[in-house]
């Protein structure tokens, strides 16, 4: 599904943010990515969603070596990835419904086909009555749930989430993790970057830890 081989990343002439990172995410796996702030978690996620090219090393995504893949093929690869950004990155001029429906629109789906799916998903994340609200009128936690709904609505092959439960209370956090687990059971490969030890301990997932740009495998997925 995802393979990194000796990947290094630096921004401009600065120091390397990631050094010799090698790992593989198998199809259908559930993984936590942990590490202190500034360890390179967000950069690692950016490389996985083809937002930046690595400075060195090889990245293979869905069987495509990105170094030799034509750039015209990137949009189709990106549409197979659902992302929950740390800063949500919702479109403030669109309603919660339209924000969630965005990946489906980009995939060319007709509004009549996806209306029910989007409404059900918004209800599941507890925003059934805020569908027409615009993000600036939503609380931080509500915005985060919209961002999560947007990331999962198209049932992506790979779900990347950067601190997805950082702004919600523990109950909602657990509910969202159950959503990710449900998606994972349906076949989506999930990688969650988080500081939330409680979340990690409750799950039986594999944990990878980044320290100073180097990857340390802490725990394999428990049965």
């Amino acid at each position, binding site marked *: 599904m995802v393979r990194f081989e000796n990947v290094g990343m630096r921004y401009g002439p600065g120091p390397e943010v990631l050094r010799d990172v090698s790992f593989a995410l198998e199809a259908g796996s559930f993984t936590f990515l942990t590490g202190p702030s500034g360890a390179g978690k967000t950069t690692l996620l950016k490389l996985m*969603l*083809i*937002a*930046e*090219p690595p400075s060195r090393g090889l990245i293979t995504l869905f069987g495509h070596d990105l170094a030799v893949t034509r750039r015209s093929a*990137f*949009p*189709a*690869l*990106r*549409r*197979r*990835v659902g*992302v929950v950004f740390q800063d949500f*990155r919702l*479109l403030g*001029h*669109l309603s919660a419904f*339209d924000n969630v429906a*965005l*990946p489906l*629109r*980009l*995939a*060319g789906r007709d509004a009549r086909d996806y209306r029910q799916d989007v409404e059900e998903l918004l209800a599941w994340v507890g925003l059934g009555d805020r569908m027409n609200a615009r993000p600036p009128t939503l609380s931080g936690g509500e915005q985060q749930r919209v961002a999560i709904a947007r990331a999962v609505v198209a049932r992506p092959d790979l779900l990347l989430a950067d601190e997805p439960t950082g702004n919600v209370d523990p109950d909602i956090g657990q509910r969202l993790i159950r959503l990710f687990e449900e998606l994972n059971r349906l076949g989506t490969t999930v990688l969650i970057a988080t500081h939330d030890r409680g979340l990690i301990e409750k799950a039986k997932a594999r944990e990878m830890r980044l320290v100073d740009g180097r990857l340390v495998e802490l725990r394999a997925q428990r049965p």
Partner: protein
Amino acid sequence: MSGERPGRIMLRDRGAAPLDVVIGVMAFLAALALGASLIADRAAESWRSGLANRVTVQILPPEKSAVSLDGEVEAALRVLRAAPGIAHAQRVSDQETLNLVKPWLGADALIGELPLPRLIDATIVPGAGVDLESLRSRLKAAAPDSVLDDHTRWIARLRTLARTISWSAYAVLLLIAIATASTVAFATRAGLEAHHEIVELLHQMGAHAGFIARAFEWHYFLATLAAAAVGALLAAGFFVAAGGLEFAGIEPVPFLPPLSLKPAELAWLLAVPAAASLIALVTARLSVLSALRRIY
């Protein structure tokens, strides 16, 4: 990628009024230039058709007093009326001759004292192919002070003038097209900068460059169409007002063709907003695609 319309995904531009004003003014100038070229073409055609089938014979006041001016006029008229291909020949009355020189010399009473030439206006049968050299020599023999003018020199000069005006107008149109494209390219880059978060998000979510470009090109197409339509309408108003002045008997510039446009010619001004909006559409698309190529 689907034919999904991206219009609602993009935020409507605010503060784009200066762009609309610039495009409106440029469309106004473009429509004036286009109108000028239409007027020049029409004038050239009317001058050509007005003079092409006519010749004028001037009988200059004879230097030898023994020769009668009126006698030479009668002799020249006889030659012309007998010449093959000449449909009609008529002496221009003294009053008409005075009227012709009035615009240059004024209506002073002294004008009557001037030794004005006598004029004969002759019409050629269309397509008759009159041998002007032979006619000229026969006229010289009958009326030694006669000068045959077939207006060729004038027609050539007027054609050159009209062609110069037309090409100048086309050059102005080209410059305005370049200016419009540059303005829209600048505005598109500013728009991309203003909406870079939306553009980057769509890009990272797997939107094709063409999808994002469509959002911008459609926006600038409509904005330019509206602004340029206003500019062209103002220019049309100018030409209609000029026609109104002529109708009221006020001639803006003597000897020059009327500055008004006929309804069919006014319709040509619609080409200005159509062309401007197409230029805007293509420019916006190319600008966005070029900018997106720089994003990984």
